[in-house]
């Protein structure tokens, strides 16, 4: 059946509005970033005026975005890897091991999802400035202060727990009879079977850590250690920097997330679907 002309026009208009709402802001960010004409704070360009890539250069070198990018990279790479390792091990214990208080442990982990980070910001600060035992120093103002708090994340622990529960028990028993110990069962049987889920928590973890704002703000007091979200906010409050440079810096900050998502997109969607079906 052919749709009538007015209906098609109406559809077109609706789609155009939706497109405008979603793509519009991004478009103007890109246009502003490549505009050679300085804009006042609060202004954004809709069309490029004397296009140039100088803004990126200024942001990257003069505003030292490279340094913040590096900091973010360090935190996100170590943080994500540590997070996935810890989550996988915790999930294995929760999914497969019988131990006293397993339900309580599970509930405690779950409860951390219910606490907004604003609530734990001050306790977190107090912990990081304390001389910690064993290492006998405080981790305040170090990469560790930004990495350690994100290593345990209830979301990825629960996601992996559910996937591990779905791995048939007989496989683990077969491996044990074949002579495998806990680590070998984990490495040879469980991990290879939950690879899609690992990919998913990897991406979620990456984005979660990349977007951390409050945590670095609270535990870092050194411009050289600031991550991109914190640095961008302080750039914005500096009146001498034009919006062109700030949005150029923002684009640089967005790039890694977009690249990671695009690279692992297939994985990401499949992982989500699998989780949804298994419920």
């Amino acid at each position, binding site marked *: 059946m052919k749709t009538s002309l007015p209906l098609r026009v109406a559809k077109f208009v609706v789609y155009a509005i939706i497109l405008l709402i979603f793509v519009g802001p991004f478009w103007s960010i890109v246009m502003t970033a490549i505009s050679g004409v300085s804009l006042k704070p609060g202004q954004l360009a809709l069309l490029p005026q004397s296009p140039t890539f100088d803004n990126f250069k200024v942001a990257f070198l003069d505003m030292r975005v490279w340094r913040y990018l590096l900091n973010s990279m360090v935190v996100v790479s170590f943080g994500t890897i540590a997070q996935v390792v810890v989550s996988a091990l915790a999930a294995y214990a929760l999914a497969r091991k019988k131990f006293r208080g397993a339900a309580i442990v599970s509930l405690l982990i779950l409860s951390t999802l219910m606490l907004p980070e604003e609530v734990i910001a001050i306790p977190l600060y107090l912990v990081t400035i304390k001389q910690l035992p064993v290492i006998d120093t405080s981790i305040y103002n170090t990469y560790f202060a930004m990495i350690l708090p994100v290593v345990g994340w209830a979301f990825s622990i629960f996601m992996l727990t559910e996937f591990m529960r779905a791995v*048939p028990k*007989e*496989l683990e028993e077969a491996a044990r*009879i*074949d002579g495998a110990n806990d680590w070998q069962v984990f490495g040879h049987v469980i991990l*290879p079977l939950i690879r899609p889920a690992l990919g998913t928590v990897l991406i979620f973890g990456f984005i979660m850590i990349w977007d951390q704002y409050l945590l670095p703000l609270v535990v870092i007091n050194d411009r050289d250690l600031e991550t991109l979200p914190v640095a961008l906010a302080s750039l914005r409050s500096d009146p001498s920097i034009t919006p062109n440079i700030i949005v150029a810096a923002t684009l640089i900050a967005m790039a890694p997330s977009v690249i990671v998502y695009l690279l692992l997109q297939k994985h990401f969607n499949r992982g989500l679907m699998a989780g949804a079906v298994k419920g």
Partner: protein
Amino acid sequence: MGAVKLQNVCKSFGGHDVIKDVSIDINEGEFCVLIGPSGSGKSTLLRLIAGLEEATSGRVEIADRDVTDLPAKERDIAMVFQSYALYPQMSVRDNMSFALRLARRPKDEIARKIDDVAQMLGLEALLDRLPKELSGGQRQRVAMGRAIVRNPAVFLFDEPLSNLDAKLRSQVRGDIRDLHRKWQTTSVYVTHDQVEAMTMGEKIVVLRDGQVEQVGTPLELYDQPDCVFVASFIGSPAINMMQARVGAGGKTLVLAEAEVALPMPAGYDLRDDQDVLLGIRPEYLEAVTGHVDHALPATVHAVESTGSDTTVICNSPVGQVLIASKSRSDLAPQQKVFLRFTEGKEILFDKTTERRIVPAPRPVSSLADVR
């Protein structure tokens, strides 16, 4: 190779007793079948031998070694699971060599063993495939191969044929039997299928509610069941059970509802009016159309023929009665018949305890008479 010994083994899950004081001796090289209805604890017992469950009390021995507290990997056993439990991400070759690789055996030894076993089971062409690319029967063989390459002291099978179709099942049944004949490795096999148990087992252990009901060879269980449960569980079509009372000073068995008195089988010395259960296997009943003495009157309800076997289902005053025969039947439904008992094939059980009443051995007056 090694014997398996269970001594007073108990297992309970959260206060619920699943295995109750079970003691079984499985000799070296023996093929032992654990059989019982679902919930009888047969799989739990196998898992206790495997070390996948810990016994609540009692002792498990494999090859004269106390393994009660040893983990599965130190018990020198191999197990074939009902679901086969092949590692999905590994090729057939990797599945079969997994145990050897974990044990860090030399590469050339692993390759040689895999090739030998693959050849024996006809798996050479499948070695590089993944389990998902195999049919049910092929997966089953890979699971067997994985167990065989280990050359363990004991093989454990947990209903390995239940996922196969009937034709493949009888073929694999034969394969397992042949392998056992060749390797003579002690094997413990769990099944709920009594045909499998009868055709494969050298020794059968019948379990009910976590307890051993009877241990014996297939024919011992068939001919001399210890109790009504074993008599009814073993044999297809099932044994006929009817209530009877001893009469005429212990000389007859009276089937009261049918007003029939059967002569007392030889060897039984029972008092008058004792209530018993009379068991008779379907093949020891014969349907005749004319009146005969000491026969149970009945009406044919249905005739089922598989070609080689015929089962006639009759309704009688003592309940439904099955007759099995190798010959074709010309009986028709609603036909009146008399059921004749083959002499000496009756099995009597005490009505209250449901245990078999053991007849005295046939009298042999002297050795000279036998000669």
